């Protein structure tokens, strides 16, 4: 299934990233995982958080450009060659990966966040090849559960 990623546009200004994390902290929103892409002028912070809708609401309230984007979280075994295999399945289906990052490495599987050019087709081909994906709840809480 598809999960919601919280994306925030951040200008390259001192303290701006910290402003984002403070807003989330003040509203008791946990960051399960994140990736920060940077360009010369701005950054794009992509996060899997405990409550993406609420996260977007509070960030917008504080004046940030924040939005939700659909991504998938695929589980892969922690052994050599598995990431390559997943990418090959997507490539063979004619899909491209816009970006990806690690959601969690604790437990027996690693879970990877992916944005593919066609997410539903990606889900379909991954499932057909026996791969599991995280549910939204599972993704948002993944590292909390593991910590317990």
């Amino acid at each position, binding site marked *: 299934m598809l999960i919601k990623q919280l994306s925030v546009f951040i200008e390259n200004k001192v303290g*701006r990233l910290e402003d984002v994390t403070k807003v989330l902290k003040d509203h008791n929103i946990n960051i399960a995982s994140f990736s920060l892409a940077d*360009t010369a002028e701005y950054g*794009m912070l992509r996060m899997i958080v405990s409550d993406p809708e609420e996260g977007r609401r509070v960030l917008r309230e504080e*004046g940030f450009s924040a*939005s939700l984007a659909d991504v998938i979280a695929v589980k892969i075994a922690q052994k050599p060659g598995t990431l390559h295999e997943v990418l090959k399945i997507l490539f063979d289906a004619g899909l491209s990966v816009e970006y990806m990052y690690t959601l969690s490495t604790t437990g027996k599987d690693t879970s990877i966040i992916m*944005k593919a050019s066609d997410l539903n087709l990606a889900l379909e081909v991954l499932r057909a090849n026996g791969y599991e994906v995280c549910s939204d709840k599972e993704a948002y809480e993944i590292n909390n559960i593991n910590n317990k």
Partner: protein
Amino acid sequence: MIWNETKECMSRDELINLQSARLKKTVSHVYHNVEFYRKKMQQLGLEPGDIKGIEDLHKLPFTTKDDLRENYPFGLFAVPQSQIVRVHASSGTTGKATVVGYTRRDIEIWQECVTRVLAMAGIGINDKIQVAYGYGLFTGGLGLHYGAENLGATVIPMSTGNTKRLITMMEDFEVTAIACTPSYLLHIAECLEEEGKLDKIKLKAAICGAEPWTENMRKEIENKLNLKAYDIYGLSEILGPGVAADCEYHKGLHIYEDHFLPEIINPQTLEPCKEGEIGELVITTLTKEALPLLRYRTKDLTNITYKPCECGRTIARIGRFKGRSDDMLIIRGVNVFPSQVEAALLELGETSPHYLLIVDRVNNLDVLEIQVEVEEHFFSDEIKELENLTKKIAGVLQSALGLSVKVTLVEPKTIARSEGKAKRVIDKRKLYE
């Protein structure tokens, strides 16, 4: 030297007689050949015979850039197309160009004016001059070119865009004079410095214009390049470069009053200013055939003095420009109105109406940055999408303005909202100080 002593050093009485005769002729010409002026004069209850001399100038209607635009392209031309030998055009406020035309006689007068400017800067037949203004629709390149040829100097028509080649030729040809924008000349000076060639060049004079510049910039240019730098003023609506220029005393720009009748008015009340008082420069052409203009509002703020200059010229001098009475910016010699940017962005329809223009000078070249807020409706979590958007905005603005633009995306609501008139422009160049 003084190229045309008869005209540049006339007594005030003689000049007024000449101006009055030419004004009467111009008024009659536009009344009979330009519907726009005939209607305007009729509305004011004026007939050509009511204008008996320059003392009646204030009775005549003003002309604005909007009038030129509304009569796009040739509506204000006073001669049939068969007599027009050239047109030039500059970018307008809404994307429509301001088109100007010249008869053969107009071109001759234009080159005479530019020749006077070059002679005033000490340039003559033994000089080799690089004309490094843009050639084409812009009046800078061809204007200087014809004037320099008429003078008899050796003209090297560089145009703009290839500084390396310009420097090579400057050195190899032993070029002695250059005509270009002052910011470009400073850029050339820096390139010469980097290549260690400052002492290899033979430049002695520079004719700089097409954009406002400061006395400090002149000093910097003169010190770096060991030459004399002169200021040339003009606008395509009136002529192109060569309406006025300064002499070796640099105490204001001599305006060629035998062809252009200047006034300084208060831009709010439209009443004349006293001699020396700062106001808007208004020019009536006295000899133009193709596009004669009555009381054209230049929007340039300056003052005027009629005192004869130490150089011997008696024609009036206008002071260093103090700014504009509208919001036009001159960036790399190109006229830019914030409204053009707004219109282009609105047409694109993908950005917020909040934008900010930042004009700065980096390594002596003007750079225009436009900040656009990233709003929810075009936000994307994919950087390539944001970069495509930036490129798209830059592309649209480049074709609208004729100028390359750096687009910067900023967070929403970071561009200050002001009450009433929004602050859309930050000009860091400080050109009017």
